[in-house]
């Protein structure tokens, strides 16, 4: 299975996402924002970082990149797309998921090992998790506050589109502690925490067993690989 990772000017975690794809057992394909080709990949990751410096609104300028035409088209046709942090912000700016992301309520960038509760597993990227499972994934952002108007929020909650919720600490003022959401169809998932930073023992978040040993992020990538096998 081929999973494309799109690099935008200012992408930072693109190589980490490629590594995660590789460790999960798929073939990572580096895609360039300025191209119009998805090179035949089966799924897409929009990685974290500060595309275009995140200067206008996070993800806003990247969402206008040439390749986004193809990304939006593929997403609408059902291709699995995972937006991580800046990638989540791009999904929101491109209206592929509902809501918006604004500056953290405390005003600072925050980097921490974040506990999340899996609220729903009904998506291309989450079938390897169990509902109610608690996982630890690094979080690092300055603008991760999830907001939506009351009506949208009620719909997301009602339709089971809230995928992950922050546990113990709400690190950025997100409404309803929302850490990640999906689109109606379930092929597009966006979240602020970084699963690609929890895929390799020694370089992940701390766990009770040992420092830096957390690999809970692998589940995102193994989920999408399994789904591809089922659909094949």
């Amino acid at each position, binding site marked *: 299975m081929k999973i494309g990772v799109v690099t935008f000017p200012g992408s930072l975690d693109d190589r980490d996402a490629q590594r995660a794809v590789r460790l999960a057992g798929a073939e990572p394909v580096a895609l360039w924002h300025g191209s119009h080709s998805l090179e035949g990949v089966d799924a897409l990751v929009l990685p974290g970082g500060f595309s275009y410096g995140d200067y*206008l*609104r996070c993800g*806003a300028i990247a969402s*206008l990149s040439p390749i986004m035409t193809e990304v939006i088209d593929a997403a609408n046709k059902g291709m699995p797309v995972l937006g991580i942090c800046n990638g989540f912000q791009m999904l*929101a*700016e491109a*209206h592929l998921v*509902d*809501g*918006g992301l*604004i*500056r*953290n*309520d*405390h*005003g600072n960038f925050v980097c921490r090992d974040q506990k999340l509760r899996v609220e729903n597993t009904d998506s291309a990227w989450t079938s390897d998790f169990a509902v109610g499972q608690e996982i630890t994934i690094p979080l690092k952002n300055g603008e991760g*506050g999830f*907001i*939506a*108007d*009351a009506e949208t929020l009620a719909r997301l909650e009602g339709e089971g589109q809230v995928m992950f919720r922050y546990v113990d600490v709400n690190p950025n*003022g997100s*409404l309803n502690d929302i850490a990640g959401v999906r689109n109606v169809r379930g092929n597009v998932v966006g979240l602020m925490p970084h699963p690609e930073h929890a895929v390799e023992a020694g370089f992940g978040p701390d766990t009770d067993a040992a420092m830096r040993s957390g690999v809970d992020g692998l589940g995102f990538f193994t989920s999408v690989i399994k789904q591809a096998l089922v659909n094949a």
Partner: protein
Amino acid sequence: MPTIVVEVMPKAELLDPQGKAVAGALARIGKDGFSSVRIGKRFEITVDGPVTDAVRAEVEAIANDILSNSVIEDVVGIHYETPAGETH
């Protein structure tokens, strides 16, 4: 060269944590009397030629589609200023 000013504010019904933080800071240093602060953006765009109707239409489109995100923000003003400074 003429300057166009576009003003964007966070939607009134949504949270504005930055504004809240500033309001809190003002209260803490004893500047009360201010009941709320909201923080938006102000864009100054310089255009190369005269401000024609086509330019106006284009600026309006840019303001709505790029300079603001309609899910969370509103465009609250677009002003066209000549170099002399008066507003049309």
